[in-house]
């Protein structure tokens, strides 16, 4: 019988290396590792989300979750790494249009991007959306045959519509699946309520945030009164967007809320920590 425990030292060979997988945004600098240099411990940016991590990207509607996931996929594909993109909400043709526009704006080679992204269109297939094991078989095929290294599921919540009681079980199955196939993954997780909208609380179901390696929370504030307008230095009627790493158990990270904008070309541009943004205006 295979022994059910291992001594810590035995895990050295199978432990993943700690380095970043670029998202093509300033998020890459918000994860870090501590290294020893000349007898001193210094903080070094990881250069991306931790390799082989599986992160929840969560937020209320129109907070920029899919935009971030697409930018991550585009950046990786442009760098020559294969990405498996599972679209559960929006048909694949719309994803194509969106990617092409972003690639042009970001100066990416769209031919290379096209070659390196494999899409599973679950939005148009009830079988893929309703049967998690059929979807996992299909993902396994794509990972094995196409050699993908990264996976985006947009959205994981779309896989348990109307049955949130299954949320933890389904999220855990896909989390374990990505670990087994050694993929770096992003799960888009819809936050259905604006309550505590700047946290991962109840995002995509009760306590699912505990299953994944970490969460990135996107939020937006509508400037709808004079007080907010003065605080943020923005005109009434505009929108302030924030992004925050709401925990990651694999590596050190910035814990502050950062202000970002979605550019006219539909890309994410992280500007500055919210505290500095407000201070600068003050």
């Amino acid at each position: 019988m295979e022994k059910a425990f291992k001594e810590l030292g035995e895990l050295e060979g199978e432990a993943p290396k700690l380095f970043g997988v670029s998202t093509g945004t300033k998020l890459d600098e918000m994860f870090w590792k501590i290294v020893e240099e000349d007898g001193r411990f210094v903080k070094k940016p990881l250069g991306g989300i931790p390799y082989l991590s599986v992160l929840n990207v969560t937020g209320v509607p129109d907070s920029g979750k899919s935009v971030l996931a697409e930018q991550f996929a585009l950046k990786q594909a442009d760098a020559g790494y294969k990405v498996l993109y599972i679209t559960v909400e929006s048909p694949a043709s719309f994803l194509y249009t969106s990617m092409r526009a972003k690639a042009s704006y970001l100066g990416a080679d769209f031919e290379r991007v096209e070659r390196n992204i494999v899409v599973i269109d679950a939005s148009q297939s009830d079988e893929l959306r309703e049967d998690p094991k059929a979807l996992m078989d299909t993902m396994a095929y794509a990972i094995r045959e196409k050699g993908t290294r990264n996976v985006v599921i947009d959205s994981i919540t779309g896989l348990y519509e109307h049955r949130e009681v299954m949320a933890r079980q389904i999220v855990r199955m896909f989390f374990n699946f990505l670990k087994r196939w050694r993929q770096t993954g992003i799960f888009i997780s819809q936050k259905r309520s604006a309550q505590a909208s700047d946290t991962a609380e109840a995002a995509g179901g009760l306590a699912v945030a505990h299953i994944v390696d970490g969460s990135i929370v996107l939020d937006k504030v509508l400037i709808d009164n004079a007080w907010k307008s003065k605080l943020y230095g923005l005109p009434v009627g505009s929108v302030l967007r924030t992004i925050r790493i709401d925990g990651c158990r694999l590596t050190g990270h910035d814990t502050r809320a950062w202000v970002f904008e979605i550019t006219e070309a539909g890309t994410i541009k992280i500007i500055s920590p919210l505290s500095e943004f407000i201070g600068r205006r003050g």
Partner: protein
Amino acid sequence: MEVIRGPVAKRDIDQMAENLFHECLRILGGLRRLVEYGRLTWLPSLAEAAYVILLKEEMLKTSREIAETLGITEQTVKNILRSDVEAVRRYLEGEMEKVDEHIAGGIAKMAYEKMKRERGVFIKEGELEALGVGWAMDVIKRLRDATFPLNPEELRERLKGVRIDGGSAEELVERLEKPIESMEELLRELRRLAEDR
């Protein structure tokens, strides 16, 4: 951008339910045993339980969804899913006179665990022939109800007339060096001996 628009392999839940139902019957010793014990009335419950277990474990359906799909009450679904396998096993083995569990549910759970362990796949005879291992189907059919380990005499008797890669199976059985503990081991050994021949 390559787009995959559907599952790479169809999962036929109805076929799986039929297989699971048959596995339940095998656990009970076959249909004949049910006739002998006057338990043919268990069949609808076993079919129901087989579907419940599969819809839960393979399709991750909620109890309510399963109840709606099968047209039974949610409470029945819950009773099947909560059935204590160990208690049902002891009841079937005669260690307990009565059991306060959903018996068919316990049997279906046992059968599902067995199927999962053995990772059975549904494959047609013609496909096995195409793979060059059509003989394996003959061996499996002949030994379907056998209890391992098998003694060489019984094995020879049961495999009489079976041809493996153009040679006689009986001749290969003569060359088996140790008792055979399982079907997998038998198939592996027969293949090895046929290749050596």
